């Protein structure tokens, strides 16, 4: 069918199975993961119960997420929503982070062979360090420096909100080789764990939500790495260099944005689906008018999540077709996360004080959801990007 938002039957089946598994096998560990600020110790055994391939980095032999005719990026949307429907702790345990993907996007063939291919073959954790204490949205403000000293690049600076940074086998660190060059001076460097001067200042931040995600504060103090660790740069044959990668890094981030919107939709849909039967059980406590209002709210919330999904599809179809739209990706990221926050809050309000109790996961998901309108570009930044399609650089 042309111009249809309906997923193929096989993808629907895969997503439903994933969602049910995530709910029954993973959600019971949600509170524990939040309180212990980490994945459950038996996460491997929990993942082993999955009836479908998840694309685990630690056990690639169990298979990748299948290919569906809907397209790889549409598949990711269904995947992220379904897996996050159980709880937020699950999906970071599958992959080893996104550092290797940056290598793939920015590296020379030799670098890809050294740092990307092995991760794909044997699994492993990698990380991506761009944000610093002094900036978030404005990535041209990278203050971390990489200075050449004979056969080394010497990295100095701080990086925060680095997911998996404390345990990754290497971190792809964005640093400037020449501040005078502005954004053009920003390069990506592979910094292996254990390199002298690579310090984990704080393994995990004390956060409002997504506490099970390891969000590290890193410091690079005269951290010397080999020349060939500068991505996209061929030390022996500069003519083979593929560029500094700054734009590439942001491009890679842009296409991941709808995936983050899908995470938010997963949490919001889970919240609606948790409160709906509870509310129905309590229907007798409501006046008929109030019960009508409750039903109307549930209906409106379900409808608005569907809107979020459709924008996500619009955005990611463009990626699957090879003509990615940064504007649609931004629209998707600008829409669902903020909407999801409001949906989860309303679910809490409809239940009353029971909704804020730790007996249920709603209060946790309300905390978890807040980051989704902040990371990978805040709602404000997304609106600037969308605005620029209308009015160009004047948007700001």
């Amino acid at each position, binding site marked *: 069918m042309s111009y249809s938002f309906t997923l193929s039957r096989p993808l629907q089946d895969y997503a439903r199975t994933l969602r049910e598994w995530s709910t029954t096998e993973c959600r019971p560990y949600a509170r524990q993961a939040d309180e212990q600020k980490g994945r459950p110790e038996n996460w491997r055994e929990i993942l082993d119960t999955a009836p479908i391939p998840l694309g685990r980095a630690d056990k690639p032999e169990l298979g990748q997420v299948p290919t569906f005719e809907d397209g790889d990026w549409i598949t990711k949307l269904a995947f992220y929503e379904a897996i996050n429907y159980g709880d937020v702790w699950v999906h970071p345990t599958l992959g080893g982070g996104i550092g290797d993907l940056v290598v793939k996007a920015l590296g020379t063939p030799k670098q890809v062979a050294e740092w990307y291919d092995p991760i794909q073959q044997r699994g492993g954790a990698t990380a991506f360090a761009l944000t610093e204490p002094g900036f978030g949205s404005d990535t041209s403000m990278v203050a971390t420096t990489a200075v050449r000293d004979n056969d080394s690049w010497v990295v100095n600076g701080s990086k925060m909100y680095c997911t998996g940074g404390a345990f990754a086998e290497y971190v792809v660190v964005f640093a400037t080789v020449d501040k005078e060059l502005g954004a053009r001076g920003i390069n990506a460097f592979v910094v292996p764990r254990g390199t002298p001067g690579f310090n984990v200042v704080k393994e995990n931040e004390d956060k409002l939500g997504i506490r099970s995600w390891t969000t590290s504060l890193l410091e690079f103090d005269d951290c010397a790495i080999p020349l060939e660790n500068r991505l996209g740069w061929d030390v022996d044959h500069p003519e083979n260099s593929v560029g500094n990668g700054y734009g590439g890094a942001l491009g890679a981030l842009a296409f991941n944005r709808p995936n983050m919107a899908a995470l938010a939709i997963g949490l919001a849909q889970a919240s609606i689906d948790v409160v709906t039967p509870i509310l129905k059980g309590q229907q007798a406590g409501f006046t008929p008018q109030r019960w009508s*209002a*409750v039903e109307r709210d549930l209906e409106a919330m379900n409808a608005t999540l569907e809107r979020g999904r459709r924008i996500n599809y619009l955005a990611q179809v463009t990626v699957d077709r090879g003509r990615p739209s940064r504007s649609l990706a931004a629209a998707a990221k600008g829409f669902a996360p903020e909407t999801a926050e409001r949906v989860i809050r309303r679910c809490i*309000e409809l239940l009353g004080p*029971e909704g804020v109790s730790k007996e249920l996961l709603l209060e946790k998901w309300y905390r978890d959801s807040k980051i989704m309108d*902040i990371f990978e570009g*805040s709602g404000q930044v997304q609106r600037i990007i969308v605005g620029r399609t209308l009015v160009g650089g004047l948007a700001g």
Partner: protein
Amino acid sequence: MIDLEPDEEQVEIAALARSIADELVAPSARDAEYAAAVPDDVWLKVFETGLVMPVAEEHGGGGVPGPLALLAIAENLGHGDPGIASAALWHAHAALLVGAHGTAEQRSALTRLATDPGARSAVALYEGFGRGPAELATSVAVEGDQVRVRGRKVGVPFAASADPLVVVGTDPATGAVRAVVLPHGTAGVTVVANPGSLALDATQLGAVDLDVTVPVSALLGGPDADPAGLLATVQRLRLLTASTAVGTALRAVEYAGQYATGRIAFGRPIASYQGVSFPLAEAMMRIEAARAELVDVTNAVVADPGGDHGTAVGQAVSYALAVAVQATRDGVQTLGGHGFIKDHPVELWYRSAATLSALDFDPLRDPFQARL
């Protein structure tokens, strides 16, 4: 005649509350949360100011501030920290109800609350389901010389320890609002264990199941209590809690505004972007509107305690809490990633406003808007 000048008492009390909030309450916010209790020294100092124990001098208190002064206390303490403010104020609510409507014997018991900083009392008011006080399903039935209380209360402060616990319900015979004063340990009061909440841990919120039979002397104000007057005071308690949230909203906006003037992105302070400054400006506009509404409705309730203020109070409470929820949300959003970590207090305000909003929510007043 319109007169928007606060009187001397209101000005002085607001200033005192703000200074206590700045110097004492705000710095202790995290400690209170981690301990799930207001630290003893903080409680003692707040208690000694007399701001949060509205008890007449004849019962050992420092006097009962006027209705608008009480609103100002709630807002200004909420500006310091909603958790500590709510703990102190909700303890005060019991004294307020008993002082205004209790029998002589009930009022004489206020001396303990006024003089013992270790005392914790509470009003069990909320039930969820969007119910206003006139619709409470908890029944307070007079049966001869006894009164039977049955129902379930949620969002009860100091649920496990309140002494007394003042339970508000309705008389099934008349439909009128009634309340009973229950000493701690009264048989038939079952506290539902609560593993903790999104925020306001210092208030030790919980649910209470009630099936209690006590002598009729436990009825607040006795069998002949004036239900209209009692209802009016209960409505004011709701407005006071909404005022606390307004104070928190203001603090969040001020904090975010200050952050935005110092944080640089794309070559200038982020406050210079309308995408950042306008949400904060919207919040400021709405905070003004919400505070004015709380004052206006409080005045109306006080001027005519027998009138039907359910709609006006419902509107004012619903609006103020919605404003607080959005303002505190925008506070986190303004700080971005920094707002998401506990190095800054905005995340605590975000959680607290949502918790307050869940206490007193009516789906009829605030339909979910698919506004994005």
